[in-house]
């Protein structure tokens, strides 16, 4: 990096008011220390077939992987721009028209300092790709700053899971997706007790008939700070989107979602649905839900709902009378609460694996036995 370090957003910016960027401030301009040891990654991959690539502190392990040029047509963004400027490696996934690239997993491990990464996806007409990007660490403080740029041709389908497993550091992941006519996006942000997480999804629905499911499950415990922001930008007539976010916070965790929907003046027949729900496991935890709707067209359907609640005590007692111990009952009810955020993913092995992972996390959190 040369010249003055770039400025990070602060909490005075409305879009960053709940973000915890302390790790970013601390590590901005600090590269990770040299360390050639290979991390233990077995438990971090989803047990699914398909190509895998591992990045440790921003560097590829095994093959070399030059950082792809970012998509200059995407909106400017302070952290995504920083990733583009500083990433020394990354992944470009280009799928030719009509091809199905199956499932690809990229695993990013943070290891002290700041590491930047870029993934660029280009899907031709009718092409398909499922991409699972996971972020984890080895218990050290760090900052993993990642950017995904995706361009979906007509009729293309992208399934992407942004899976944050980091325990100590900050993961900031921003996905920007431009969608062609009749294309499909299913995006899931999964935050499992990350120390600090900022997950953003911005979707430009540029082609008629495009449909995006942008869902999230944030499970925070201890002192986790999980922050998310979406913007579904309906820019042409006849597009649709659905957002389902389920936030669960225990301990002194903070979880937040600012769920945005924008409908341009001429984008008639937009059908946008948004459901933001939070569950407080303890009253020491904090959740923020902020629906943001900017609708400039008149012939549109934009439904939104927002609720914060606690576990149903009558249901907990009912489970207890049937012999289910409190920890297991809590996990079961919490899993039921988050389950519909998985519904945007296609049925099959990936969804089952994430469902099982969510269940395991909840059961571990409560110290109960598996159902």
């Amino acid at each position, binding site marked *: 990096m040369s010249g003055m370090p770039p400025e990070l957003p602060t909490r005075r910016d409305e879009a960053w008011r709940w973000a915890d960027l302390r790790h970013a401030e601390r590590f901005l301009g600090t590269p990770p220390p040299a360390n050639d040891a290979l991390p233990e990654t077995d438990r971090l991959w989803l047990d699914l077939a398909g190509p895998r690539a591992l990045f440790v502190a921003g560097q590829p392990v095994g093959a070399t992987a030059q950082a792809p040029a970012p998509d200059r047509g995407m909106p400017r963004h302070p952290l995504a721009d920083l990733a583009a400027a500083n990433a020394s490696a990354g992944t470009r996934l280009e799928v030719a028209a009509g091809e199905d690239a199956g499932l690809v997993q990229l695993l990013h491990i943070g290891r002290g300092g700041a590491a930047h990464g870029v993934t660029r996806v280009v899907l031709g007409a009718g092409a398909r790709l499922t991409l699972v990007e996971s972020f984890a660490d080895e218990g050290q403080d760090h900052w993993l700053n990642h950017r995904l740029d995706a361009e979906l041709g007509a009729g293309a389908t992208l399934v992407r899971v942004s899976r944050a497993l980091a325990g100590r550091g900050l993961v900031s992941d921003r996905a920007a997706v431009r969608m062609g006519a009749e294309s499909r996006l299913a995006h899931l942000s999964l935050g499992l007790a990350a120390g600090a997480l900022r997950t953003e999804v911005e979707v430009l629905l540029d082609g008629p008939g495009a449909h995006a499911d942008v869902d999230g499950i944030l499970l925070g415990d201890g002192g986790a700070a999980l922050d998310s922001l979406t913007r579904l930008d309906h820019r042409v007539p006849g597009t649709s989107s659905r957002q389902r976010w389920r936030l669960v916070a225990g301990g002194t965790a903070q979880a937040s979602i600012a769920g945005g929907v924008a409908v341009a003046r001429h984008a008639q027949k937009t059908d946008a649905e948004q459901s933001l729900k939070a569950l407080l496991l303890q009253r020491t935890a904090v959740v923020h839900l902020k629906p943001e709707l900017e609708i400039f067209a008149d012939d549109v359907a934009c439904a939104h709902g927002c609720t914060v609640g606690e576990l149903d005590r*009558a249901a907990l*007692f*009912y*489970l*207890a*009378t*049937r012999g289910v111990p409190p920890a*297991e009952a809590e996990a079961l*009810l919490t899993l*039921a609460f988050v389950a519909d955020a998985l519904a945007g993913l296609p049925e099959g092995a990936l969804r089952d694996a994430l469902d099982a992972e969510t269940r395991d996390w909840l059961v571990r959190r409560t110290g109960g036995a598996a159902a």
Partner: protein
Amino acid sequence: MLEIASLHVTVDGREILRGLTLSVLPGEVHAIMGPNGAGKSTLAHVLAGREGYDVTEGTARLDGADLLAMSPDARAAAGLFLGLQYPVEIPGVSNLLFLRTALNAQRRARGEPEISGADFMARVRAEARALGLDLEMLKRGVNVGFSGGEKKRNEAFQLAMLQPRLAILDESDSGLDIDALKVVAAAINRFMSPDRAVLLITHYQRLLDHVRPTHVHVLVDGRIVESGGPELALRLEQEGYERHAA
């Protein structure tokens, strides 16, 4: 099997049970009858361990063990079942997952192996058929979208699946039409055996036409004021509880 001695219970600072004593032996079916507000549901809930029910005096033992010292789930694992008057709806948790989780939790607590998926489903099919419950319905959320009668059938289904030692059934007959009443009654009769017992809490005689009690008790103002055989229920049906009024 169940020994309750001089049980005093307060709810929100108000004494509801005032020295209730009751003994239930294996093979017995006890009916507890009484007017509204007598403490019938309080008895059911305090035995199951619901929070907010404070025992100020007395004891309750199940097979010699101190029931009141156990958590609600431990009571269930020890063989106690509470059929609720108002079964709870749990969206997002299917009836089958609920039941399998419960069954395996109880088995683990007793040091028994978990039930296999095949054995579980075979039992589900047999018991659901007997209770006229549709298997598709059981794949939906617990009690979600169930009519009042279906919820009570579902309680009877859970009773059949969990096979407790002692079933406390709180107003299992309320909200049932005559056909559903017969189905639930048949389930209770199928459940009964020489080493099990039932405590039926009811307002009315009509369930007792189908489940014959060995003992009938009248609960008024938190105490059992009269006990007898099945003939007592018939007399109450005719005379009401007036003669027991304080």
